[in-house]
């Protein structure tokens, strides 16, 4: 019993902070999302409505933003997998002497301030940016290509930001692939590509899936990079929530969007953790 009392004493301070300034604020967002908003009058406090949620599904503009967010999540995840797998493979299977430097080069951008990384892409991609200047100078194009404030810029920037997470997840799972199995297959005459397809790839599936879920969830939640590389016009769900609160002051719509986004991320994380538990039980 003494143990329980000191346990509660150790736990209580953090639990209180999280209840008072995380759980309660989130719960208090619920009633806001069912209020009506009228421009000029603000939030109308008598009566409830589910219009804010219906709007997300029926309003053309909202639907476009939601679909774009999901689509960006899928594309960025795919790109991270495609670019990340060879890097992870080189780290785990390449020359051991390169290993630490390569890992550090993957971690470094991860630890670097997100705003700085996004700013770097602005310097590269904007109309008078490095890439356009270079292409114009060597005479490949006459007018600058539109690389920013659209899908291109967003895809490049977000892939760059979340690639390190994918690489680190894949490294962890590649390390668990027993090399004897691959060697056995090679001895029995399998080609390198066949070994990769039939052994390495399936055995790293858990890493591929957890890395993909992480990158997808991070991408659909991202605010900073989409705003810096997408501008005020090319919106995703997070930037729309930001504008509903800061510019339009339509808090009810913002709250409904917030819940929809949070519901999506929590559901995906919950489903994936259930899935991995079931697999662990099978193995």
């Amino acid at each position, binding site marked *: 019993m003494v143990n*329980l009392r000191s*346990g*509660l004493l*150790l*736990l209580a*301070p*953090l*639990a209180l902070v*999280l209840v008072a300034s*995380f759980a309660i*604020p*989130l719960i*208090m967002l619920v009633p806001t999302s069912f209020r009506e908003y009228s421009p000029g009058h603000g939030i109308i406090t008598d009566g409830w409505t589910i219009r804010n949620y219906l709007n997300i599904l029926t309003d053309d503009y909202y639907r476009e933003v939601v679909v774009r967010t999901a689509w960006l999540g899928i594309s960025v995840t795919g790109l991270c997998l495609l*670019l990340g797998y*060879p*890097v992870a*493979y*080189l780290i785990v*299977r*390449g020359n051991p002497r390169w290993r630490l430097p390569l890992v550090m*080069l993957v971690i470094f*951008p991860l*630890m*670097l*301030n997100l*705003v*700085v*990384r996004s*700013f*770097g*892409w*602005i*310097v*590269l991609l904007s109309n*008078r*940016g*490095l890439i356009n*200047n270079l292409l114009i*100078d060597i005479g490949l194009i006459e007018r600058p290509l539109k690389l920013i404030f659209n899908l291109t810029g967003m895809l490049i920037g977000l892939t*760059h930001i979340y*690639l390190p997470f994918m690489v*680190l997840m894949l490294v962890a799972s590649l390390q668990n692939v027993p090399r004897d199995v691959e*060697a056995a297959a*090679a*001895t029995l005459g399998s080609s*390198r590509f066949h*070994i*990769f397809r039939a052994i*390495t790839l399936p055995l790293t599936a858990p890493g591929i899936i957890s890395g993909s879920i992480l990158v997808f969830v991070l991408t659909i*939640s991202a*605010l*900073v990079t989409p705003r*810096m590389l997408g501008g*005020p016009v090319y919106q995703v769900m997070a930037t729309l929530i*930001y504008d509903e609160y800061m510019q339009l002051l339509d808090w009810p719509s913002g709250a409904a969007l*917030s819940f929809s*986004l*949070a519901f999506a*991320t*929590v559901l995906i994380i919950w489903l994936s953790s259930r899935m991995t538990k079931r697999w662990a039980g099978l193995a």
Partner: protein
Amino acid sequence: MTEQKPGFIVSSFALLVVFFLQLPVIVVVLASFSETSYLTIPPQGWTLDWFREVLTDSTYLNAIKISLILAVSATCLSLVLGVAASYAIARRMVPGSEALASFLMAPLAIPAVVIGVAMLQYFSLVGLRGGFVTLIIAHVVITVPYIVRSALASLSGMDVAMEEAARVLGADSFTAFRLVTLPLIKPGLVAGALFSFVVSMENVPVTIFLAGARQTTLPILIFTSVEMGVTPGVAAVSTLLIVATLVVLLLAERWTGFHRFV
């Protein structure tokens, strides 16, 4: 013995991708030394003017100061609260440890912008928005999961028998924790604290809803000034951040083998 090794094509592609990861960093550093506000190849001329401008501009200096104070206070508070709570959970001193651990990690599952707007509405309602303590508490909420994650991993990875041995030999529980447990979990905690510091230093989605006019942090300053257009000052202050990150990362690697904890 035939080993599966990456071939030439795979290796070259992977190295290109690693270069892609460093590309914005290289460009920002070059831009900060360039005379023109837009970077060209080759650069039009070299200058240190932008650094002088940033280091004498009170807006930037203030933002750096506020960011550092905020990140250090939030990380210290997160460390104390997070390690205490993790200890109670890892040693099964309280029931429902798995559910409790997920609750402490929950801020990671909710998009930061959602936490931001929820706090904006709540702290405005209770009249605490704009206070610096409010901002520190908000940063504890978003940084503490990183501390809890590394503390739980380190605590469950260590041998409990060592702690018990200290207790048998007459140490009270706090002394046993301080002299035996703490040194054993220290590398993990250093890594967790570094993550917490980085997360606080770069946070925009929560800070931007809560910070008062005099509490503009460095990332908020860069984020909002970029909307006005690219200025070399931003490149210079970014270069300072790049150098600081590089130094801290290399030191952390030397002291604790940081890459094992990522």
